[in-house]
């Protein structure tokens, strides 16, 4: 079921919550709406469901305008942030509710409920009531209830926000597996970039009610369309540079630029993984001192200080760190393999202008 949003705007009492947002979700995709709280992503989800009406713009499902189709007729499955399970009904009755409304025959209903109970591993819980369930179990019931009437689209509002870290991981994997199995178009809202990267195959990033970027997790991470996206997703070094003789300079660092006039100021960003470090001082052009090492698990984060006082962050594996025989306070040489021009004179650049520049060997693996 493909979904298209065309120039959607939503105002609450004169304040714009969503501003001129357009994007398309192809059939069978698993899409994350990502952004900080208050960026309008939940409002977008609720407009797709029919729980809110756009102030302007069109919502198309399979090419047909659905603005005036009430929520009941849109055949969506919605999972609420607080689950919104029916407190007075058992797990089985919760799951059966949508089927009852759609007047399924009793036998079909029972079969479908049993199927979902099996699918979501709720076997021993069918007769329980919501207050007798843990957070993770409630979430699974909410999912089962939403999926039972075979919706065309599954919409989830911050589905994993209310459970603890361990359960959250399980539920994420479960959602991915469910999506593989059922192949139902799924859109979920999250403020957690890690969650969006891990679960979805497309990410729609929002910033203050506007669309900031759409892309695969890799695109959004490696080719952020703006400084906002770059900073919101993962860690990025962002430097304020001035162009002199065709080269953007910030402290000791230099970034070749094409066709930018001298005297222009640019904001240039690069990921910590793009910083290549060597203990051989002859290896690269730039020198810095390893100020601090943070142990994050398999990966380490390094804080590097240039003689001018400029500090950047780098990232490497434990093995690499050991191989290079690094210690805090040691002098190293470095180069930046990949960087992006994020903005020019404080303005955001349109995505096609902000091309990723590669230097030397191609980007390393993953983060």
């Amino acid at each position, binding site marked *: 079921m493909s979904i298209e949003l065309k120039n959607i705007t939503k105002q609450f*009492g004169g304040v714009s919550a969503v501003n001129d947002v357009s994007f398309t979700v192809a059939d069978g995709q698993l899409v994350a709406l990502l952004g900080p709280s208050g960026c309008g992503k939940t409002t977008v989800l609720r407009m797709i469901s029919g*729980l*809110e009406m756009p102030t302007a713009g069109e919502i198309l499902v399979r090419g047909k305008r659905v603005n005036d189709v009430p929520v009941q007729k849109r055949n969506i499955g919605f999972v609420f942030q607080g689950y919104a399970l029916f407190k007075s009904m058992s797990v089985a009755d919760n799951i059966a509710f949508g089927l009852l409304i759609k007047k399924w025959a009793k036998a079909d209903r029972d079969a479908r409920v049993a199927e979902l109970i099996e699918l979501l591993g709720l076997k021993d819980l069918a007769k329980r009531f919501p207050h007798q369930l843990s957070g993770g179990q409630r979430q699974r019931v909410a999912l089962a209830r939403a999926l039972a009437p075979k919706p065309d689209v599954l919409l989830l509002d911050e589905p994993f926000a209310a459970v603890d870290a361990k359960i959250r991981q399980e539920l994420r994997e479960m959602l991915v597996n469910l999506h593989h199995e059922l192949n139902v178009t799924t859109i979920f809202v999250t403020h957690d970039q890690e969650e969006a990267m891990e679960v979805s195959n497309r990410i729609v990033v929002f910033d203050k009610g506007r669309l900031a970027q759409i892309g695969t997790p890799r695109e959004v991470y490696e080719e952020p369309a703006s400084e906002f996206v770059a900073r919101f997703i993962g860690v990025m070094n962002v430097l304020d540079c001035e162009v002199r003789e065709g080269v953007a300079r910030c402290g000791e660092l230099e970034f070749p630029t094409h066709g930018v006039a001298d005297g222009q100021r640019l904001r240039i960003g690069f990921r910590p993984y793009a910083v290549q470090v060597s203990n051989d001082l002859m290896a690269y052009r730039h020198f810095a001192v390893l100020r601090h090492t943070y142990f994050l698990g398999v990966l380490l984060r390094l804080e590097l200080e240039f003689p001018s006082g400029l500090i950047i962050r780098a990232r490497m594996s434990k093995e690499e760190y050991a191989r290079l025989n690094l210690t805090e306070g040691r002098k190293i040489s470095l180069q930046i393999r990949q960087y992006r021009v994020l903005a020019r004179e404080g303005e955001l650049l349109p995505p096609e202008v902000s091309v990723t520049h590669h230097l030397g060997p191609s980007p390393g693996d993953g983060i």
Partner: protein
Amino acid sequence: MAEKRYRVLPGFGLTMGFTLFYLSVLVLVPIGGLFLRTFSLSWADFWRLATTDRALAAYQLTFGASLAAAVINAVFGTLLAWVLVRYDFPGRRFIDALVDFPFALPTAVAGLTLANLFSANGWLGQFLVPLGIKGAFTPLGVVIALTFVGMPFVVRTLQPVLEHLDRDVEEAAATLGAGRLRTFVSVIAPTLLPPVMTGFALAFARAIGEYGSVVFISGNLPMKTEIAPYLIVIRLEEYDYTGAMALAVVLLVISFALLGVINVLEQWANRFSR
């Protein structure tokens, strides 16, 4: 409404319409009618009717007795709530359940039984009357009846606050060397003040308008034990509608003022409990 809002849940028009219709028929039209009728009097006439000697005596008794009853309830209600929440003793649950009895008991029955209890040969009167404490047919009787009907207010507004009171704060005070009385006065009491005041105001408002329980015990002697609502009834029985309406408007205005005070107090109390 400036902007037409989209309401996803249905039924706003139906339920709102019914609510407003119901309130109009039962509240707005009757109150409006009463005020309108009274406004047809000249101010001088209104003032004369509302401030006859007998009316002034009735107000005085109504307010005096209501105030006394509310104060008694504030003191003993606080104590009762404290004891019910903090201590365990035989019969605690029974007393707790019984606190709502004055709400549940029809006021006529309350008046009847209280009048009997405090009469010269009643269970309490037989001991009190020889001591010179006459409950029945005296202003004291009015206070007794109003104390009874107003009792649950303070207890029931205070109880939840006491139950959710953070014990840590008291323990902190204890670790800082504060004695129990000191802790109560400077740590607990300030938190309890808003709900006690709310309960006090509720009990006072209820007492001002109370009729059923009082008429049985007070004897309704003009200028002595006659409360304002009873005087309204007398005026009505004399077919003196305007006299009754003037008194009623005075009581209504006071009710509205008290309602405003109670709203403010409740907001205050809510702010505290957050």
